[in-house]
C-alpha cells in the first residue's frame, strides 16, 4: 500500500498498533484543513506492527497528550521533502485537561472552571494521580 510522502509537515511514527485513531481524535486532527493520513498495522522491525499519522502541515502538537497516550512515539518534522528533526516524546510530569478524575468525591466534580490536573506518581508503572484528591487514574 502506498501513501504519498509529505513535502512539509509532521509524521507521528511508532504509534502502538490500533492506537492511531485514538491519537487522531485526542489531537483534534479532524479539525485541520490539510490532509491527514492514519496508517494502521504498518510493518515495523521493532514493533511488529505500528500505526503512523502523517499531517500535511507543520502544526503545534500537544506533546503532553502524545506522551501520556504513548510514550514510545517519535515525531518527525519534514521540510522540503527532508526530515529536519526527529525526537521522542516523554511521559509528562503533569497533564492538564486530558483526562478527568473519576472520583465522585473529588472537588473537580463540582467546582466550576477548575483544570483537571494529574501528576505522574510512578514513572516506571506510568501511574498518574489527581492533583486534588490523589485518586489513581485507572488504566
Amino acid at each position, binding site marked *: 500500500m502506498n501513501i504519498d510522502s509529505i513535502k512539509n509537515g509532521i509524521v507521528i511514527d511508532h504509534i502502538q498498533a490500533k492506537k492511531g485513531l485514538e491519537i487522531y481524535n485526542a489531537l483534534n486532527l479532524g479539525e485541520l484543513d490539510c490532509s491527514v493520513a492514519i496508517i494502521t498495522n504498518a510493518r515495523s522491525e521493532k514493533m511488529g506492527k505500528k500505526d503512523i499519522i502523517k499531517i500535511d502541515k507543520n502544526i503545534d502538537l500537544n506533546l503532553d497528550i502524545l506522551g501520556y497516550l504513548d510514550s514510545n512515539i517519535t515525531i518527525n518534522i519534514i521540510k522540503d521533502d527532508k526530515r529536519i528533526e526527529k525526537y521522542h516524546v516523554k511521559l509528562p510530569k503533569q497533564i492538564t485537561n486530558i483526562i478527568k478524575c473519576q472520583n465522585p*468525591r473529588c472537588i473537580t466534580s463540582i*467546582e466550576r472552571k477548575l483544570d483537571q490536573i494529574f501528576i505522574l506518581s510512578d514513572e516506571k508503572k506510568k501511574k498518574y494521580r489527581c492533583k486534588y484528591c490523589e485518586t*489513581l487514574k485507572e488504566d
Partner: protein
Amino acid sequence: MKNLIDIKDLSIEEIEELIKVAKDIMQNPEKYSEKCKYKKLATLFFEPSTRTRLSFEAAMMELGGNVIGFSDAQSSSTSKGESVSDTIQVVGCYSDIIAMRHPKEGAPLVAAMKSTVPIINAGDGGHNHPTQTLTDLLTIACEKNRLDNLTIGVCGDLKFGRTVHSLITAMSRYKNIKFVLISPEELKIPEYIKEEILEKNNIEYIETNDIEEKMENLDILYMTRVQKERFFNEEDYLRLKDYYILNINKLEKAKKDLCIMHPLPRVNEIATEVDEDDRACYFKQAKYGKYIRMALILKLLKIS
C-alpha cells in the same frame, strides 16, 4: 509554609518545631494569651464537625484572637451555588487565617490556590486531615517521649480511615517504626499505602484481623470508628460497624505503658470500661489537639 493542606507539606523539622511550641503553650499558656490579639480565624465548615471546629475556635480564643465562620454549608453561599474559589476570596477579605472542612476531596487545595490568607485543611472528605495527624504526633511525643522506635497497632476502618492513612504517612518518616494493621478483610489498608508508603520506606508491617494477635508487642493502639458516611451501602456498614470492640479483657496481654488512642468520636469500638484504664489516652489526645492547633496558627501567621 503558607498553608497546611497535607501532612506531607511539613518537614520533620517543622513538625518538631510545632511540637516544641505546643509543649511550651501547655506549660506557659499565659505567655500566649494575647499573641493573636486583633487577628481573626474563619472556620468554614461545609460539613458538620463539632469537635474539630470547637478545637480550632478554642485554640484561637486562647491566643486572644477572634473567630468568625459557619458550621454547615446550608448557612453559607454554597447553598446558592457559590464555588469554593469565590467563597475563599470573599472570606479572605474578612479574616487573617482560614480553617476549612469540606466534603469534597481536594477542596482545601483549590482554596489555597486562590486564597490571600493561610488555609488550614480541617478535613476534606476521606482524603486528608493534617491537624488530626499533628494532634496524634503531639500525643505520641508527650505520652511516649519519642516518635521513633515504636510498634503501632492501627485497628478498624483502614480502608476509608483518612486519619490512619495520614498517621502511617507521617510515622513512616521516623526510625524503627513497625505497624500492625488490624482490620476486617473488607476494610484492609489500600494497596497504594502499602506500596507507596510502607514498602517504599522499608517499614515492617503485618496485616491481621485479630486485635489480640500482637497486642503484647504494641506501644500504641490506634482505634478508629467505622464511618457510616464513607459507605455507599448501608448493609455493609451495619455488618462491619461493631467488628472490633476493645475491652479490658482484650488488653490483658498489653504492655503497662501502652497508649490507646482514638481520633473520636467513638461509637462502640472502645468499651467505656477502658476509659478508667491509665492506658486510655483518647481524651487527653483531644486536648493536645487544641495546643497543636494553637502552635500551627502561630506558625502560619508568622507570630513567634
